[in-house]
């Protein structure tokens, strides 16, 4: 292999493994300007291709990239600043911008400070940004996904997603969203937004709301990677630990969730030998730890529920009474109709279909989940088990009319034919 080939392989490797950390540091060094940092890093990588090809790869490639990109970024800021001064002197018309204070960014230490990636996480998930923008920005800057990849994953047109990113970065700069880890009194509240964003990414992969694929594994993997990073950076936060456990325990079931034809397989009918034992073991360890140290908090409870499923050798062997109890605690902590729906399903398993049906009917009469296909689907399932075929068929039809995922639609249609038969 020639030096140039070796170098290009190395650049490829460095690009993949170091881009995110280098970017996180650069954003801080360039005064919180995401776009400038991205452009400057891109230029530094381009320079690396020519430089490293002849002189070889430096001993600390990331440090080289950061300092090269910083230099390029600061040069650009100086040019902008001079341009703005001239423009003001000549009293040109047009939109004005505040010349950046380059001197404040010059000199000093250009290495990493604490963990810049943690700053980046908290900034991308700042509550002043819309949730969709938080998700897009997190995937773009923290995971390094391209704009069109993110657009494809969330099934929005590329220009829409690109605009979402532009606006988010603009707001960070213009509204003065700080590039930092929030002070202790804000961490708890802000961490909730971070956890929520990561879980949203995971859920979009795990139960895709649209598109031909029911599971988009790459999104699940990115979310798990972020969960690991967050836990590595904040090892004392038990909810971060619980979230990672929750995602691992769900992800462990992926091979059993779809059959050969790509059809959805319900939890109770899954071939449990296909579950990933390694991920389950890791998840169980994490959830026990989270519960012991942090007590019954929302993600810990959800992870404990997933752990009960993971521990059961067969569906009937599941400890449904404890499951119902955990859901009961969760409803108290985080009241939501979706959690109530899941509690009703657990209650039906633990105390009989009639008991579960009463809870579901209550939700239905309250109109708590309008347009949510899983409520009629759960009712249909209990009615079917009770042998009330006509009512079950009605409920399946209602669910079918509301479901948007093709695999779920096929599943519901199959069940409908069974009860109609």
């Amino acid at each position, binding site marked *: 292999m020639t030096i140039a080939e070796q170098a290009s392989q190395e650049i490829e490797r460095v690009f993949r493994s170091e881009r995110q950390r280098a970017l996180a540091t650069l954003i801080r060094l360039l005064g919180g300007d995401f776009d400038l940092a991205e452009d400057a890093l891109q230029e530094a990588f381009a320079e690396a291709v020519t430089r490293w090809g002849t002189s070889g790869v430096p001993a600390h490639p990331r440090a080289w990239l950061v300092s090269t990109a910083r230099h390029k970024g600061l040069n650009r800021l100086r040019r902008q600043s001079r341009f703005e001064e001239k423009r003001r002197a000549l009293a040109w018309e047009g939109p*004005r911008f*505040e010349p950046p204070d380059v001197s404040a960014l010059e000199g000093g230490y250009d290495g990493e400070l604490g963990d810049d990636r943690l700053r980046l996480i908290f900034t991308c998930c*700042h509550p*002043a940004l819309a949730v969709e923008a938080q998700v897009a920005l997190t995937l773009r800057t923290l995971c390094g996904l391209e704009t069109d990849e993110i657009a494809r994953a969330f099934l929005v047109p590329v220009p829409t997603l690109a605009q979402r990113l532009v606006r988010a970065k603009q707001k960070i700069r*213009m*509204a*003065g*969203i*700080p590039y930092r880890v*929030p002070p202790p009194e*804000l961490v708890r509240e802000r961490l909730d937004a971070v956890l929520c964003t990561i879980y949203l990414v995971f859920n979009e992969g795990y139960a895709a709301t649209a598109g031909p694929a029911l599971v988009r594994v790459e999104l699940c993997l990115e979310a798990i990677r972020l969960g690991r990073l967050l836990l590595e950076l904040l090892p004392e936060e038990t909810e971060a630990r619980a979230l990672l456990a929750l995602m691992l325990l769900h992800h462990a079931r992926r091979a059993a969730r779809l059959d050969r034809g790509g059809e959805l397989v319900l939890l109770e009918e899954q071939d449990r030998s296909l579950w990933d034992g390694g991920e389950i073991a890791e998840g169980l360890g994490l959830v026990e730890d989270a519960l012991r140290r942090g007590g019954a908090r929302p993600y810990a409870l959800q992870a404990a529920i997933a752990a009960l499923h993971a521990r059961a050798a067969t569906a009937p062997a599941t400890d449904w009474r404890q499951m119902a109890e955990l859901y009961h605690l969760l409803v108290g902590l985080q009241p939501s109709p979706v959690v109530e729906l899941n509690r009703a399903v657990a209650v039906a398993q633990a105390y009989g279909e009639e008991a579960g049906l009463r809870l579901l009917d209550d939700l239905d009469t309250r109109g708590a989940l309008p347009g949510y296909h899983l409520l009629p689907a759960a009712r249909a399932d209990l009615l079917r088990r009770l042998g009330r075929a006509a009512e079950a068929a009605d409920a399946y039809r209602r669910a079918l009319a509301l479901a948007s995922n093709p695999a779920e639609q096929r599943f519901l249609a199959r069940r409908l034919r069974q009860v109609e038969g």
Partner: protein
Amino acid sequence: MEYLLLIYSRESDWAALSEEARGGLYKDYYEFTDGIRKSGHYKGGNPLQPIATATTVQVRDGKTMTTDGPFAETREQLGGYYLVEAADLDEAIGIAARIPGARMGSIEVRPIQKM
């Protein structure tokens, strides 16, 4: 950075308050304003007269049109504002959250564009 904190609430909510509750709110406002003056965040601020006193002015083709009422009819109305100096959005949000009106209405936080 400078931020304008716009205080929105329903005038009917204010009207529904007892004399005593309103007095308490005025006192809270006095203490809050005094606090941000002393901390150096305060740059200005005022309550506004009720929305019934609002007039909207538009100039089209050099012609001035004047109409009674606010520019837009909204559920909550602009009732006052503060102009504050803050290090960043987090600090501005922290100040906004301490405005007594945040408990009954909403505060819109807008960065000032420097000219």
